[in-house]
């Protein structure tokens, strides 16, 4: 029995950590800008491939490669803001949410195909791979899963500290609460948006490294985490960071338990049924505000 519990918890916690990391990036942008970034999944893939290039082509150590993935993701986020989002914010008016969603779908397709052109279509092995396992009762826990959860939790704690304890975090929170009031208080809202997209991109970069370490490097590797992250965001209430993390872990463990108890194919359908039930019960999500608007 203990080995079954271990297997279910390991799968649930690992998936939960990955979903949570993807969700935080997505939720951060929605919460502060009212923007659904459909290119988030492609930015995950970019992070994974950057790590691969830095280790395999440039021969640099893995920690440097992971920092490079974060930097590349952050740069991609900044370019997204400067090249597209800023213009849409100026001209989009009430249609911003729709236009930015369509624009980022285009960016996602372009980025995925660029990766396909550069790296080819064959799946590649992510250099961030740790072999070995730790015995827990009658079961075993792979070291890679432990590291994934540890890194994801550490990153989320760092983001939490950054948002709650730093000057930059205060500016982000102020802009999210009331953009006009923040402007009147001298908060440079444009710069805050740039920072938010850079932060989200950096998170996507590190998340891409972790996801590809347990799956593989392909241009489409971000599609599944992106879908799951969106579901977690909706369940938690769009824009609610702690809620999104709780929803990610909770739903991932339920998914793993259903996969064991009812059959692997029922995991995702049950997850979707739960989402529907939650949204009927609480349309704004479990921890959501009644109404979300772009400030």
């Amino acid at each position, binding site marked *: 029995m203990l080995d079954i519990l271990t297997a279910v918890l390991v*799968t649930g916690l690992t*998936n939960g950590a990955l979903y949570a990391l993807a969700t935080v990036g997505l939720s951060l942008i929605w919460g502060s800008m009212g923007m659904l970034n459909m290119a988030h999944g492609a930015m995950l893939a970019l992070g994974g491939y950057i790590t691969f290039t830095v280790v395999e082509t440039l021969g640099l150590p893995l920690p440097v490669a992971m920092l490079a993935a974060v930097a590349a993701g952050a740069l991609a986020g900044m370019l997204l803001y400067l090249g597209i989002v800023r213009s849409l914010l100026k001209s989009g008016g009430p249609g911003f949410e729709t236009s930015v969603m369509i624009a980022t779908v285009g960016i996602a397709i372009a980025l*995925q195909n660029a990766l396909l052109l550069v790296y080819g279509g064959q*799946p590649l092995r992510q250099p961030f791979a740790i072999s070995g396992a730790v015995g827990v009762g009658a079961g075993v826990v792979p070291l890679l899963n432990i590291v994934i959860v540890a890194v994801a939790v550490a990153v989320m704690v760092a983001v939490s500290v950054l948002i709650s304890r730093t000057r930059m975090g205060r500016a982000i929170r102020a802009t999210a609460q009331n953009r006009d009031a923040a402007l009147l208080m001298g908060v440079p809202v444009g710069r805050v948006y740039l920072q938010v997209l850079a932060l989200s991109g950096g998170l996507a970069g590190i998340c891409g490294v972790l996801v590809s370490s*347990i799956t593989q490097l*392909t241009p489409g590797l971000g599609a599944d985490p992106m879908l799951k992250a969106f579901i977690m965001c909706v369940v938690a209430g769009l824009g609610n960071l702690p809620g999104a993390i709780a929803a990610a872990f909770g739903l991932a463990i339920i998914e793993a338990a259903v996969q064991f108890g009812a059959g692997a194919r029922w995991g995702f359908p049950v997850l979707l049924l739960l989402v529907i039930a939650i949204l009927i019960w609480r349309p704004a999500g479990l921890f959501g505000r009644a109404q979300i608007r772009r400030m």
Partner: protein
Amino acid sequence: MLTRRSLLRGSAAAGAAGTALLAGLNGARAQAEGDPIPVGAALPMSGIAAADGIEFQNGLTMAVDEINAAGGVLGRPLELHVEDTADMGADLVSQAMQRLIDRYEAPVIINGYNSGTNMVEMDVAADNDVIFCHYNTMISHNNKFKEDPERYYGCFQGDPPEYYYGPGLLTYLNTLIESGQWTPPNRKLALIPSANEYSIVIANAVRDQAAEYGWEISLYETVQFPNNQWGPTLAKLRQDPPAVIAVTHFLPQDLAQFMVQFAPQPMNSLIYMQYGPSLPAFKEIGGDAVKGVLYSTVVGCLPDEFSEAFRSSYRERFGENSSYLTGSQTYDGLWKWALAAAIAGGPGAPFDREQAMKVAASMNRLIYRGVNGICRFDPEGQSAFCYPTQIADASLGMPHQFLQHQDVAADPVMVAPGSYAKAPFMMPPWMS
């Protein structure tokens, strides 16, 4: 630069068995200088199957170059046109095929595989009277052909349907036991398909005939597609360890993850997979954990002397990480069509039913030894015959290849069928 003379000189080593025949058919038309013949291919060049789509295109490119160097088809060079089917499905694939016909007037379309199409490609080919050859590896091709053979006369599946994986596996397992190469701890077999038609048809074929071959299905667990977290499935397997775990899900990266997650706490079970382990990504991702994995494929470039030149040329041209096992499929498909079209007196054009029927008849008559083995079409379903499950004569069917990863630093070794085998079965390291 590949020339007709250099190609003919190297043909014996290259394994391009059709080169001399095609050059003979071309006769005095030694140079491919006539009007180009558009050859269409609707391939997944982007999306989840892009890796295979690129290889299918590579195979076609190689075949086009070789055929043109041999004088083309009756003096007319081939010109390849590829349309992207992206994430596949009936709508995207049928539109891509129709574009190939409307824009380029392609009299032939050679596809690799496209999933989720419900074989709608056959309707496009039939409606436009073009020859269509594909490697979807689906029994639904045979079933659709049987519904109306006159309508689908020009539709061919270049390999045996996936159904033959089932009886092929059961036969092979019993051969291992009878020959004393393996003593199973029990007669239980666990089946792990994923939620797609291809994978489920194979699993069902095993399940439905298991008892007949003396096996009991202890677990039938369908996983989602794609799937990389195997923890809950492995926990179920460990509750009642079977003698054989047959994973009929086919994505190489997911199968590699299965082995990576299986390795820390292995069971005394023989692990069989299909198709995915034949691709470089399986070994690349799985590393040492994949040593001992047994797999089979009903189509793939044979690791024999005949195909050696193709394999080395392919890798030299498209890179060490390229998969000649995939590219070989469309390579053989185009070669067989080119020979058939030359024998029939020309490729025809869309809506030229009379000529298309001549080419189709020629395709049916021609027994072609390509780099994947023999391609001879079964008149009942117009798919390649499967050796040894469907036909006992090795010279008349495409071999159902059983291979094993015995050394992760080298190519996998073929262990069956007997006439093609290069080494005996090796007991996997987690079982010995």
